[in-house]
């Protein structure tokens, strides 16, 4: 695997390979010395043009568990505010000798531009580009689902027939897009729910069913319900009248939580707006796997960094 840019078109075998390698990486975390020497001497650059806490820390932890060196760049307080471009910034960092760039950028397609260019030689891992993709988030969600459903026997399994509801701000969500394509590849049935104004144009061409009524979805007893963050920083228009109205219609409140089947798991990619798309009780309930998602994120990112940074065939095989 040369780069990881998107889950759309990611072959099923490749996706399962990443999930299976992540299982081995998860085992490392349980050891007395949770560290592998695999990427010793390699350098990973976290290049973040957009704010992030968990993704940056997660990639940093993953790289360090594999003994890679990590350098971190965040656009705030950098030369980007002086007008430096993506090309110049990444070339400057690459000139310091790096093997992989973990890129977060507010422009959709930024990672693909960087990977397709001849600006740098390093492997590119997309850590979120605008409203387009966040592939490691999709992978860690698939991993979390697989673990919740199959436990220790999850290795090699796909998500055939698993019913997942993704709820809320689909329009601005790269998490939703990453999940839709990956989970569909793995055989899951995906239902998207949200206000009309927050469903993207062209959603009917996605491998999903779409609705606007959350209560109807809960009545259908999904295996998992994934609440998306309302991305107020990307909302430059009025998509719904009031936060209270949003919470009433599309939030996972205490009353809806009580109506969910006991074995339905509750997911959220974080950071949460407690009281808006998810109530505190739902977020902290035993069926919530939100903290598992964070822990699994480290395993997935270890697997991805291992797969893009090892092997002599990294130049030829692009994914």
């Amino acid at each position, binding site marked *: *695997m040369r780069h990881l840019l998107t889950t759309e078109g990611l072959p099923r075998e490749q996706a399962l*390979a990443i999930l*299976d*390698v992540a*299982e*081995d990486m998860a*085992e490392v975390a349980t*050891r*007395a*010395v949770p*560290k*592998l*020497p*695999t990427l010793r001497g390699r350098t990973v650059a976290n290049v973040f043009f957009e704010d992030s806490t968990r993704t940056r820390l997660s990639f940093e932890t993953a790289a360090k568990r*594999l003994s890679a060196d990590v350098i971190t760049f965040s656009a705030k307080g950098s030369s980007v505010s002086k007008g430096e471009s993506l090309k110049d910034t990444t070339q400057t960092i690459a000139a310091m000798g790096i093997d992989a760039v973990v890129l977060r950028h507010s422009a959709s397609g930024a990672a693909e531009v960087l990977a397709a260019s001849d600006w740098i030689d390093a492997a590119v891992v997309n850590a979120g580009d605008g409203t387009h993709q966040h592939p490691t988030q999709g992978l860690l969600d698939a991993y979390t689902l697989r673990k919740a459903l199959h436990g220790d026997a999850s*290795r090699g399994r796909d998500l055939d027939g698993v019913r997942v509801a993704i709820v809320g701000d689909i329009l601005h969500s790269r998490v939703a897009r990453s999940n839709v394509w990956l989970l569909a590849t793995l055989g899951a049935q995906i239902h998207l729910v949200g206000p009309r104004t927050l469903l993207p144009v062209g959603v009917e061409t996605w491998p999903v069913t779409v609705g606007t009524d959350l209560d109807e979805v809960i009545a259908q007893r999904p295996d998992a319900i994934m609440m998306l963050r309302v991305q107020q920083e990307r909302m430059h228009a009025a998509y719904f009248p009031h936060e209270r109205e949003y919470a009433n219609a599309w939030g996972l409140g205490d009353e809806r939580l009580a109506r969910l089947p006991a074995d339905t798991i509750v997911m959220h990619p974080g950071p949460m707006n407690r009281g808006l798309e998810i109530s505190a009780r739902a977020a902290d309930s035993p069926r919530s796997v939100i903290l598992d998602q964070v822990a699994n994120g480290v395993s997935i990112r270890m697997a991805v960094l*291992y*797969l893009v940074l*090892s*092997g*002599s*065939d*990294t130049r030829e095989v692009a994914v």
Partner: protein
Amino acid sequence: MPARTVLQQADIQRALTRISHEILESNRGGSDLVLLGIPTRGVVLAERIAANLERFEPGSGVVGSLDVTMYRDDLARHPTRTPSPTRLPAGGIDGKTVVLVDDVLYSGRTIRAALDAIGDLGRPRAVRLAVLVDRGHRELPIRADFVGKNLPTAVAERIYVRLGETDGEDAVAIEGEGSGS
């Protein structure tokens, strides 16, 4: 070049039985023994030896698997390897005598990686090495304690170990120049 079979099923079985006795003899019994197979075929061999030990001295056939992929020094020279699971027995390996089991001992680099992996998992009292075939050409100061068969080979030759559990039959074959007809 046709492959020449050098060990048949009965030869492999006899070699593993002898190795099992040798392990018990050198350990003065079956206490505090842990067999760790190196995937893929080392795990199969370790399980067979463990079954022998269990028969000779009940309770002594403690077995697990040890994946060394993440500790290899040649990751940048080969296509990406997919790791296999590491499974340690419930009692761990601290203070135990660990017997590493692999199918073929060649450069010794796999065993070097295995020793590093063990160091991250615990502190055994001693580590031994059992292999079905030792084909020579060591690149590191490593030797096996228990050997099924010493097979002098040329570097250009290839050794194929086939086992019932993974390949449908038991056989060790040698292929390449010098293998004769």
